């Protein structure tokens, strides 16, 4: 026996059951028909709204970060100026004491 010859016969294509195509087509009625992905007007509106919302939230967050940094910088500058004033006053006192002696 030649096994490969026998396999050709044993595994030959067999006919699909009667009415197979009709049953598949009947099931298509229960299936959505998105052959190709199309962007509908409502989908585009949703995408546009999402983009605008994302941009607005991103801008707001960025503004808050910049404002926070500006406030912190201003406070640091004031503290530095106060420290310089104190140091300057102390220097003048010391200078006067040295000149008096």
């Amino acid at each position, binding site marked *: *026996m*030649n*096994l*490969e010859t*026998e*396999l*050709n*016969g*044993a*595994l*030959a*294509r*067999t*006919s*699909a*059951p009667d009415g*197979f*195509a009709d*049953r*598949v*087509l009947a*099931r*298509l009625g229960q*299936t*959505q*028909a*998105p*052959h*190709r*992905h199309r962007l509908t007007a409502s989908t585009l509106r949703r995408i546009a709204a999402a983009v605008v919302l994302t941009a607005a939230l991103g801008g707001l967050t960025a503004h808050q970060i910049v404002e926070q940094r500006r406030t912190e910088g201003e406070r640091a500058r004031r503290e530095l100026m106060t420290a310089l004033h104190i140091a300057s006053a102390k220097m003048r006192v010391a200078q006067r004491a040295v000149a008096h002696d």
Partner: protein
Amino acid sequence: MSATAQLLFATPDATLQRAAAGDHESFGALISEHQDMVFSIAWNFLHDRGRAEEIAQEVFLQLYLTLGEIETPAHLTFWLRRVTANRCIDESRHGRWRIVTLDEAGDLAGDTDESDPFLARKIAQMLQRLPAQQRLAITMRYQEGLEPSEIGAVLDMPLNTVKSHLRRGLAALREWLGVTS
């Protein structure tokens, strides 16, 4: 992809284009043209007509949703073979296919006389004992007449792996069927 395959893939088809545009009649023609191939792959893999038809139907329903991506008739045939094979593998992983017991397989393997009118049926049933990948490789080789390189493309496996599956599958069948050559 071979040069021949590229040439085949470049051939346009009006039926395919109409089906992709939503024409059910054209899609029905595509089903009629390919249903025997798809059903037979599932049948030879599962040896269960009900499950084979279920898988074949699911393959064509999936095709309907994917038609816009199918470019040529050759591409369609390739796609159908690959998706059917994948469905069969999924089915075997879920363990819903009919298992041939060793006792049953032993009875089937009793007589291998060439004149045995039931030999083809025995071979097909013995095939069920093979691991899924070997069974698919042998089905693609002897049902579809594909070369090992083509089987590798359909089943997405290296050429040497395909050859190994074919060699081991045939050796197992020879042993179970008592074939000496």
